[in-house]
């Protein structure tokens, strides 16, 4: 991942990133038609790809498809409005259903992608510093939020390790029911490993006096870059304009 660390999404300060994420989320929720939502999705995807390199990898995209496609099909078949495009007995596909299914599916994609990008490209210590030093958020709450954000990379790391341990012991990828059973056991290992890691982190924080006092100091002061405020204002203005236009 280090090769991507010079990219702008990694370098951007966490406060600006949070504001931009909120802007994108507002737009995704506000837009009610498939075409502009698809354009927003394409812009977000390209921006993340450009800004962070390989963050949105194939496994994550697969996961999104597993959720997205069933949701799209369900919406397609249950929402009935506008022109009927296809009918077979009780089953009916309408233009309105198709539009609604596409909007909702793309919305899920956009919200997931931006959250994942924030989680993977943000140094959680920097986020805590920003929240506590600039926004005066209580440090216990800020750490809680930051650790929640680090859970995804932690889960990915545990998943890689758990799969490697199984493959190294000679387990081959199963098919059909066997694959389901393997996945269940594999997810169990990932879950156990992740819980253990979280317990370790909690124990280590406790042993180092985390939460002992109502305040704490910071070795590295958080400095908001000069470009941050103009970027945030630009993002907010653009969001307002798009909301008014659509």
């Amino acid at each position, binding site marked *: *991942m*280090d*090769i991507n*660390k010079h990219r702008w999404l990694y370098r951007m300060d966490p406060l600006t990133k949070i504001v931009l994420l909120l802007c994108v989320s507002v737009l995704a929720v506000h837009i009610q038609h498939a075409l502009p939502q698809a354009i927003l999705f394409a812009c977000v995807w390209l921006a993340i790809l450009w800004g962070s390199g390989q963050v949105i990898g194939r496994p994550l995209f697969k996961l999104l498809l597993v959720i997205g496609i069933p949701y799209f099909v369900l919406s397609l078949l249950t929402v009935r409005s506008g022109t009927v495009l296809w009918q077979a007995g009780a089953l009916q596909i309408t233009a309105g259903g198709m539009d609604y299914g596409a909007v909702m599916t793309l919305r899920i994609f956009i919200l997931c992608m931006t959250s994942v990008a924030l989680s993977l490209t943000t140094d*959680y*210590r920097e986020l805590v510093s920003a929240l506590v030093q600039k926004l005066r958020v209580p440090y216990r709450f800020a750490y809680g939020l930051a650790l929640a954000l*680090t859970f995804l990379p*932690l889960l990915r*790391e545990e998943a890689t*390790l*758990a799969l*490697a*341990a*199984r*493959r*190294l*012991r*000679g*387990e*081959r*990828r199963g098919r059909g029911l*066997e694959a389901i*059973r393997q996945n269940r*056991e594999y997810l*169990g*290992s990932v879950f*156990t490993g992740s819980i*253990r890691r979280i*317990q*370790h*982190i*909690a*124990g*280590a*924080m*406790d*042993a*180092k*006096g*985390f*939460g*002992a*006092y109502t*305040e*704490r*100091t*910071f*070795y*590295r*002061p958080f400095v908001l870059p000069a470009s941050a405020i103009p970027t945030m204002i630009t993002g907010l203005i653009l969001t307002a304009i798009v909301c008014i236009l659509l």
Partner: protein
Amino acid sequence: MVSDPAIVLQDVQYRYEGSSTAVIQGLSLTVASGEWVAMIGASGSGKSTICRLINGQLPRLAGGQREGTVQVHGFDPAFAPPGELVDVLGTLGQDPDAELVVGTVEDELAFGPENLRLPATEIGKRIDRLTEELELEHVRSQAVHRLSGGQRQRTALGAVLAMEPEMLVLDEPAASLDPIGRKRVAQMIQRWHDQGKTLITASARWDELADRADRVSIIQEGKVLLEGEPATIKQQHREQLETLFILPSASVSSIKRSSESSAGEHSATEQSVGLVKGMTMQSAQHSIEQSIALPDAGRVMAVKSAANPTALSAKQRTAVVKIKQLSYTYPGAALPALQAIDLQLFPGEMTLLCGANGSGKTTLTRLLSGLLQPPARTIYRGVHDTYRDKLDRRAVDTAYLFQHPDHQWVAATVWEECAFGLRAQLRLRRHEELPELHSSRVEQMLERIGLLEQRDASPYSLSGGQKRLLAAAAQFLLERPLYILDEPGSAADYFTIARLLELCGDAIQRGASLLVVTHEPELFHRYASRMCTLERGRMSINPQ
């Protein structure tokens, strides 16, 4: 020096959540202010539990039932407000990964002092001093998960020392370190203690820290068995300590000491390589002949003759693995982790892989096992280039023992963990039972390593040494041409090491090739044919 008690444990009993038997049974131990007590006990004796009772994590975080009195600086750590405890007591557990709070080395060292509300300038001074003393300056800005095991251990120790507590409880603080690193850490802890501060160290074997302590407490089955001044205890109770697997059956510790002192005379550059470079196969062989209560001499001779390269047929001399000009650089790293490595591993022999922390040992084993993808035309199995092989393909001919056994667990119980590989090999479905023949092999193996009674326990609930044995047993049950063991004897008592050596001997007799990563070559030289040393990614080979 000895004054008011700093730590008092009186008639303490403790049982873990869900367990019917107490791990600690009527323990009484008093540590005076300014005293250094070294707790020594074989694997499963309860040392780590005692450490966690002192720092209050048991039963506060992990539950369980505690009885009796525990007092640190006059208050009960299980119920003390966190601020009160952290001001006086710093603790370091056995697993450095469990001590780190995800971040860079600098972040880890700053975390405790920040919580203690120290000003940034003071934190900076402490970080500068500790990174220098612990030789972490060059990795100061690196993420801790990218560091070697030894570097992580030094970071974890630095994070505790940065808080400058009045008392320290250190559980195996030097287990993953190379000999030079161990010596430096011992000196550092000594300097800290010389300021009049209280210290408890815990270890599975009698080590340098025990020799330096004011008093040793020998722990067995959760109780203090022996207590006294180190030299006296060692002299008067040697036989008893040997039967407890705390001391080797003869003077391997003196050989280790002489090796370490010779290492101390090396130049700075040589020191980064590790002491093992100066050790010959003959001296190591001599040390092992006198060492642990290990497999009998006849058995060793048989294994050694099987491992003797000259006694092997031409077919047997065909290398199991050939490494040709292997160089490897991690993505984004400025320097290569390995440079132009040439090595062949032959059947029926054990090769030791040594070198300082961060020299590239684990990287090499991960490339060999398939955990990392090697570059093309560098690692061959026969004539087959392995660079495109997936992990399950590698698993057919390679068994890999992780540096930390917890990374290896794939099942919920000790029995299932041990049988997992056999079930995978036989392609058994969940409802299909393991055939009687294989089932009895699992049973025999668990009996051999002393874990049959704990067959239904979770692998996570075992002691450090038991985990190492289970992890090794699960691998050695599978017959593979190549076994890679990453620091299998780290923080293990002599019982664990003896059982590990037996398993290694069996594999060598079967004609397998073993690559053992270790900071303690003297423990494995009994069966070893060669010793390779890595220095900043470059390899030198010391043949027999």
